[in-house]
């Protein structure tokens, strides 16, 4: 019985203790809740301030980053443009003219507005203009040579007359050839010009003569060492001016 009583006493003591602890906990929780209820608005304000503060700071950093990124990208574009422009300037003729023009147009369309790039653009423009001019002159020269070759072929029959007169075996044979050759000309007085030297724009001629005198000259000297340079015809297809050049 004593043991039962002891157990009950111990149990009661434990219950009392639990209760007191519970009360303490409750008290502590209530106290804490009180603090928490007070702390929450403060924390909220702090969070708000912090978020505003940190949020603004984050925006600022983002902008800076974006600016830095943009600056970096711009510099990269400038460097690339400079490299491409220099490549065009240093090109020894391997890059086609159209490719140079395309690259230049691409760089110009970027409107980089960089002094070095602008200066290089001017240099490249000058180079392209010079190359275009050289190409134009080359094409003109080729066209001229082609025309000359075609004309030379088409004037071969006149050369043949001249050679026949210069190599005639007798005066009568030469005179007969002269008579035939003269029919190609508008008159026996058609001017004959012989170029003795050509240096750029400067052309030196022998003293102008007439076709009649020139054909007789071929007969007398037996010497035809010229070739046909240019011929002018009238509406009837007869020669009005003959220009020869020393071979």
């Amino acid at each position, binding site marked *: 019985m004593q043991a039962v009583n002891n157990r009950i006493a111990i149990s009661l003591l434990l219950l009392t203790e639990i209760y007191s602890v519970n009360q303490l906990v409750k008290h502590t929780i209530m106290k804490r809740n009180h603090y928490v209820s007070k702390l929450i608005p403060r924390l909220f304000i702090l969070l708000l301030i912090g978020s505003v503060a940190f949020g603004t700071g984050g925006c600022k950093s983002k902008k800076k980053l974006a600016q830095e990124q943009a600056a970096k990208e711009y510099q990269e574009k400038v460097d690339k443009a400079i490299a491409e422009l220099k490549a065009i300037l240093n090109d020894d003729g391997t890059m086609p003219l159209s490719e140079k023009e395309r690259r230049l147009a691409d760089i110009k369309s970027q409107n980089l507005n960089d002094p070095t790039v602008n200066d290089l653009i001017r240099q490249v423009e000058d180079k392209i203009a010079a190359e275009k001019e050289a190409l134009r002159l080359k094409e003109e020269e080729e066209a001229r040579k082609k025309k000359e070759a075609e004309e030379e072929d088409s004037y071969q029959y006149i050369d043949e007359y001249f050679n026949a007169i210069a190599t005639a075996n007798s005066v009568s044979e030469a005179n007969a050839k002269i008579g035939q050759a003269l029919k190609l000309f508008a008159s026996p007085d058609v001017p004959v010009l012989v170029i*003795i*030297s050509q240096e750029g724009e*400067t052309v030196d001629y*022998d003293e102008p003569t007439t076709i009649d005198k020139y054909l007789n000259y071929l007969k*007398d000297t*037996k010497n035809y060492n010229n070739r046909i340079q240019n011929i002018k015809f009238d509406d009837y297809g007869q020669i009005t001016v003959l220009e020869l050049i020393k071979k």
Partner: protein
Amino acid sequence: MKAKTFIIITLLFVSFGFESMAQDHISPARKQAIDSLALEKVRDLSKYITLIGDKETEFSEAQRVIDRAVELFMEGSEVGVSSLFREGINYYEVREYFERLMRLNYSKVDIEWYKIEYVSDLERQPDGTYVGVITIFQKFSGYDQEGGLVYEDVTKKDITVYVKRKETQIAGKLIGFWDVLLGDIRVKETSKE
């Protein structure tokens, strides 16, 4: 009025000065072309002389060739004639020389010019004319009716050459040409061979 006259005279002076300067500095290639042109005229003359002297050349042809030959010379130029049979040298005006050549009293005449070369290069004179001297050797052979050689000599002759740039309009185009004219032909020496 005086000022205007002064300006005109100055401009003319300057323009002539520029022209003369421009012609002063002709390139070696152009100079060579002029040298060759002058030599070619002398070679042409040698062919004309051969034709004129040739008894087989018809009279009309010979006359035409004489006209061409005379055109090569400056007006009033003379040609020296020598002979192994007489002292001294006779000088004839060019046309008279060619006429005499055509009528030489041989049945056949051979005239050959060789060693045609400059003895004095073309040099520019103050008036812009280039003057030089070309020397030639002429072998003359005269035959009788039977074809026998009657007379033969070799004469060294000096020909003065005048070259001047001129301009003319041909078919509406301004042409700059070099006018080559021959002057006197002087006999330097005559020998049998």
